[in-house]
């Protein structure tokens, strides 16, 4: 006797918003799905999730050797480093402006803009520009950098409840998209999207950073928030329908599992650290993430392989 199984399909009222980043042939499109991650049998998934490699505007002081050696000496020169990332197959490059941090070099907005312009010149893939994370300083730096990269359709962040007005104004004036960042709180995420759209930035130029935790460090909170953002979008909530960015590298590479080299009982360090990053990224892509920002080129390769496999249509 042949048994047939009826595949249960959910009927959704809404879909995710599609966002385009960059210009030219290496432009990236994210979002646009009408279903949960990778459920090809249920709804259209026009764009695969993408993976970015993260670089700094100076040689990183606190990165483990395992990370820096992967870039073969390019970490001292941001433009060369960005080019290396592109060669390694990154869909986007995320430039973090660490030199602007007030407790460090305290580089000026103009200096940051010069570095960013050089990096943008060096690559064809879209650029993500991240500030130093001090909201006030980012409010001064990001608009200046946005102006230097005018028309390149980059993704700027982080815009928070404290500094979104300046960051968003810089993006509106120069044709960029913005990362709206909130601390693991779906209600605040929705509210910030509303505030940003009220400044007349189109919803298709917003990407949500829900804040994440690495594997073992609160990943489940991020997972459930990202999942609720996605189901909210599919149920027709337009203020939660923007794509989601996962800042994986910054969380993973501060964990002891990724950093500690002399723990033989935890197995091989290289394998463990990279797997920590891959597992964090892949888990959150399955929750509904669209851009994973990682730091190790091996992580990039593994995550992209996984995405390629998950983008195969189901056989039922």
């Amino acid at each position, binding site marked *: 006797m042949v048994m047939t199984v009826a595949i249960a399909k959910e009927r959704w009222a809404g879909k995710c918003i599609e966002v385009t980043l960059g210009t030219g042939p290496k432009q990236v499109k994210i979002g646009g799905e009408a279903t949960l991650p990778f459920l090809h049998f249920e709804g259209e998934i026009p764009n695969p999730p993408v993976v970015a490699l993260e670089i700094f505007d100076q040689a990183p002081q606190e990165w483990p050797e395992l990370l820096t050696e992967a870039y073969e000496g390019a970490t001292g020169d941001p433009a060369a480093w960005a080019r290396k990332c592109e060669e390694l197959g990154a869909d986007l490059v995320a430039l973090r402006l660490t030199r602007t941090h007030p407790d460090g070099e305290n580089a000026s907005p103009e200096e940051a803009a010069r570095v960013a312009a050089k990096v943008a010149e060096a690559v064809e893939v879209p650029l993500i520009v991240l500030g130093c994370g001090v909201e006030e300083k980012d409010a001064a730096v990001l608009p200046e950098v946005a102006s230097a990269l005018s028309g390149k359709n980059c993704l700027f962040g982080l815009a928070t409840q404290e500094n979104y007005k300046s960051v968003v104004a810089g993006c509106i004036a120069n044709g960029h998209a913005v990362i709206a960042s909130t601390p693991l709180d779906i209600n605040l995420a*929705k509210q910030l999207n*509303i505030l940003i759209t009220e400044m007349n930035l189109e919803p298709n130029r917003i990407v949500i950073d829900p804040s994440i935790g690495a594997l073992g460090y609160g990943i489940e909170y991020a997972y459930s928030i990202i999942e609720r953002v996605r189901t909210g979008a599919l149920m027709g909530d337009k203020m939660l329908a923007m794509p989601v960015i996962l800042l994986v590298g910054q969380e993973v590479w501060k964990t002891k599992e990724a950093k500690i080299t002399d723990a033989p009982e935890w197995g091989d360090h290289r394998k463990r650290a990279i797997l920590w990053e891959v597992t964090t990224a892949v888990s959150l892509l399955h929750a509904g993430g669209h851009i994973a920002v990682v730091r190790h080129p091996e992580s990039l390769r593994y995550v992209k392989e996984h995405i390629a496999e998950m983008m195969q249509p189901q056989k039922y």
Partner: protein
Amino acid sequence: MILIGERINGMFKDIREAIVNRDPEPVKRHAVLQTQNGARYLDINTGPTVAAEDQPAVMEWLVRVAQEASPLPCCIDSTNPDAIEAGLRVHRGKAMINSTTADQWKMDIYFPMAVKYGAAIIGLAMNEKGVPKDAHDRLALAMELVANADAHGIPLDDLYIDPLVLPVNVGQDHGPEVLEVIRQVKLLATPAPKTVVGLSNISQRCPNRPLINRTFLAMAMACGLDAAIADVEDDELVDIAATANIILNKEIYCDSYLKTFRQR
């Protein structure tokens, strides 16, 4: 909560005069105001003073004028099938028919009409014998409506069961029965039919009408009410609908929820 704006109805003096003078402005004004205030449909009713033979032409005119001013679909409200069909014929988008009773001859007119025009439809849980006294008899009629709609291939989530609300100063004993029907209609079929009430009916000829309407809306929503034909120009009422929506976890909370409810 799907709010259906009740204001474009010849029962109201300004609309009655607009119909007589074929003056589109009052109709447009209420269409825009109700749209801004969070209505999802505009109820359109010629009112009782228009002669039966004139009702189709008036309905057609009202639907056209309302849809010129608002992107919303209409809830085409009449006891005259010719008037309803005239409205459907010129309607843009997915309309709602208001309404059929559970009488077989009426269901045989209106359900095929809903199919023909791809419209949703309101089914009143009453028949020629009048409004049932209790929840049980209302549910029996609701089941008739469900069975007939299903037989015509109407998706059950396009069927809105109206349990019939009576004024609280006339039929006080009907209040709890109506709330019970709103709860139990959901058990009649899968997917469940929707529920709708003519909200303002609860307060006919009472003092404190807005207070009674608002209180009843919150109570009915707690019982699972999906839609209400209501005074959407009452800001407090819309705020209550938005707040109940949040408390019922129908929408993800954000500080601007009163605004997003109106924008949806």
